[in-house]
């Protein structure tokens, strides 16, 4: 352990988002600069997990002042060292500017994006070094596990969980305490705990960020679960596409083993706990619990009919408890602070907070954690900073490919498990894709169905054949070949697939289509009846552009911007567009100085 007390801590975010925007080089440059200025003994550089504000990465926070710098690049390092770390002057140009007010905000707690969040599961992400078990312990880590193992009976823990109202954060929303109770009640000489980190929803990355930013938090949650149900072995099933998460988790397991926080007779309680990592190959269906267990056993990742549920016969036929990463991340808080502290947050039916991955046409892309019951409007406009380029809000897609789209009327809806289900969508893992006026809802539905269709494992007929037929219909609608009755056919097929598929993938795959038909039926009708895409997104339905020969002055500006070289002509002569080549992208229209170009 390093005993030096530093006067300043510089936190550099090295989550995947910031690493891809250059955080690693930033850190190296900072180290060099500090050494050159003979300050490496005074200033400590800490690599942290994701701060959630990936839009503004790479992110750097300097303590003790708590100044938040964003979009920092290597060239800024010298100025930060000279000005801030040496002379104590804030580098104002690197401060965050609120998009609405243009106001510069030095302190990170004061930025709207963070101010309106309440962080429980993400509390350590971006605050501690995920590769240091000491820092995790310094902020109170493993105290909940210590309390559970030495002062509580397994049944007490389960009762506490039940009382807290925690529900599964992977999307199902099943009460966690009850799930643990089932696994505890099954008599067996061997039981397992599994952490489902097979995060497959396009756009969702909270599980990755949690594993990267606070791996010990997940280990602690799993340990408490294992003790409560009577298991001594566990797996984290994580996608191989998350190399940083795997590296950090491996390091965390190794450190915990060294400290005797994993292994035998932990806290002298007689409890043994062994943790393994299983890397998944990236099949979406392996996020389904029975398929996931097949995959761990080395079999093909396909779901099995339930019952028997995993709590009765799970991994290798033994009782097994499976929870999502975010669910486990909430467990230490509940054990440490008590059920009441947790249930006082959120709504009556959905306690606590939920992490959402904000993506799409929104200003502040990133991860946000808010109390259940926060409205969609607050998340999108207050925390998310509104829509990109001030476009008009059209819809928000929640729940990933299994969820649905909600239009503007639902913006004041308080978000919880039940309110979203009532509105025809679902919580899912917490993906939130924001769409503006330029998004075609038929195309969006087609995108998500294309994803689920290609990820269908093919075991049951409704999902394998049904989603394929639905996709064919959607394809022909977006190509202008839609037929009378297609909408009704989609609805009928969708209902059948939902009620007869084997697993959650098929049961939810039609949701994006059905919800867009409910809320945006007119768009479907416009595509089918008038071969028209109101949002102007479906290429095949757009008419090509023409140049009015009598107005053309022969400047040639249009020909320069055409991405497919469809425009030809001689300077000072007359230009023309080849309609067979034109892709109707519209790039030429605004550059014409005499407005001679229009859609024919």
């Amino acid at each position: 352990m390093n005993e030096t007390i530093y006067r300043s801590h510089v936190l550099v975010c090295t989550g995947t988002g910031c690493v891809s925007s250059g955080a690693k080089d930033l850190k190296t440059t900072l180290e060099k600069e500090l050494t050159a200025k003979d300050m490496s003994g005074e200033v400590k550089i800490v690599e942290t997990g994701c701060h959630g504000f990936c839009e503004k990465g790479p992110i750097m926070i300097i303590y003790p002042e708590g100044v938040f710098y964003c979009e920092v690049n290597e060239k800024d390092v010298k100025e930060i060292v000279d000005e801030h770390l040496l002379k104590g002057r804030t580098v104002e140009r690197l401060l965050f500017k609120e998009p609405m007010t243009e106001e510069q905000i030095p302190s990170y707690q004061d930025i709207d994006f963070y101010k309106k969040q309440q962080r429980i599961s993400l509390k350590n992400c971006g605050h501690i070094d995920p590769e240091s078990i000491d820092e995790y312990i310094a902020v109170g880590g493993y105290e909940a596990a210590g309390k559970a193992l030495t002062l509580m009976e397994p049944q007490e823990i389960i009762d506490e969980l039940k009382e807290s109202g925690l529900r599964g954060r992977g999307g199902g929303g099943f009460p966690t305490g009850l799930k643990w109770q089932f696994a505890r009640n099954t008599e067996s000489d061997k039981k397992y705990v599994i952490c489902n980190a097979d995060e497959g929803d396009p756009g969702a990355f909270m599980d990755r960020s949690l594993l990267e930013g606070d791996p010990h938090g997940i280990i602690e949650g799993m340990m408490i679960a294992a003790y409560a149900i009577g298991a001594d072995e566990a797996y984290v099933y994580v996608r191989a596409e998350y190399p940083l998460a795997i590296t950090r988790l491996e390091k965390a397991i190794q450190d915990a083993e060294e400290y005797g926080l994993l292994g035998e007779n932990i806290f002298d309680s007689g409890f043994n706990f062994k943790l393994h990592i299983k890397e998944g190959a990236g099949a979406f269906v392996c996020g389904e619990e029975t398929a996931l267990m097949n995959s761990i056993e080395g079999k093909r990742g396909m779901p099995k009919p339930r019952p028997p549920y995993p709590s009765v016969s799970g991994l290798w036929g033994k009782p097994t408890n499976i929870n999502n990463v975010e669910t486990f991340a909430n467990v230490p808080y509940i054990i440490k602070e008590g059920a009441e502290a947790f249930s006082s947050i959120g709504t009556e039916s959905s306690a606590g907070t939920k992490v959402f991955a904000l993506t799409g046409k929104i200003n502040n892309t990133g991860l946000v954690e808010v109390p259940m019951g926060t409205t969609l409007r607050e998340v999108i406009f207050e925390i998310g900073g509104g829509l990109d380029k001030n476009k008009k809000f059209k819809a928000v897609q929640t729940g990933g490919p299994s969820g649905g789209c909600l239009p503007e009327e639902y913006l004041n809806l308080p978000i919880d498990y039940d309110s979203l289900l009532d509105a025809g969508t679902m919580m899912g893992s917490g993906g939130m894709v924001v769409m503006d006026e330029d998004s075609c809802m038929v195309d969006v539905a087609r995108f998500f169905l294309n994803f689920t269709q290609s990820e269908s494992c093919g075991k049951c007929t409704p999902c394998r054949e049904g989603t394929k037929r639905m996709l064919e219909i959607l394809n022909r609608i977006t190509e202008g070949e839609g037929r009378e009755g297609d909408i009704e056919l989609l609805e009928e097929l969708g209902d059948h697939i939902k009620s007869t598929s084997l697993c959650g993938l098929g049961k939810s795959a039609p949701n994006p289509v059905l919800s867009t038909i409910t809320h945006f039926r007119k768009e479907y009708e416009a595509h089918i009846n008038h071969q028209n895409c109101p949002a102007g997104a479906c290429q095949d339905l757009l008419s090509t552009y023409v140049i009015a020969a009598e107005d053309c002055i022969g400047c040639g500006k249009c020909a320069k911007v055409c991405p497919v070289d469809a425009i030809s002509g001689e300077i000072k002569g007359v230009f023309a567009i080849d309609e067979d080549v034109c892709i109707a992208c519209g790039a030429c229209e605004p550059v014409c100085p005499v407005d001679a170009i229009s859609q024919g």
Partner: protein
Amino acid sequence: MKSLAELKELRDKVKKDMKKRDQGTRPEIIVGMGTCGIAAGAREILKAILEEVETRDIDVRVTQTGCIGMCEKEPLIDVRMPGKERITYGNLSTSDVKEIISKHVINGNVVQELVIARHSE
């Protein structure tokens, strides 16, 4: 790890360093680190403060600031105790630092002979 007590002991050992990231109220020592301050020896003052804070194991926030215009009186430091007025000390040597920390920061008695300004915020 054999007991909660052992975990707490480890926590106490490691949490001191984490206090840097705690935004709560505690005494603050601000060192003038403008070019004038650095030229007059502010780096040595800063190092002396850090050493003293470490040897005495006290919970203090040490930050820097730029030139405040009294270049003549550098090196300058400000001491701000929670809820008290901000005291500026000037013309400091490294031995003055020890005195200021033991008398003012720890015991709350301003070192009158070194004070060059007071301001309430």
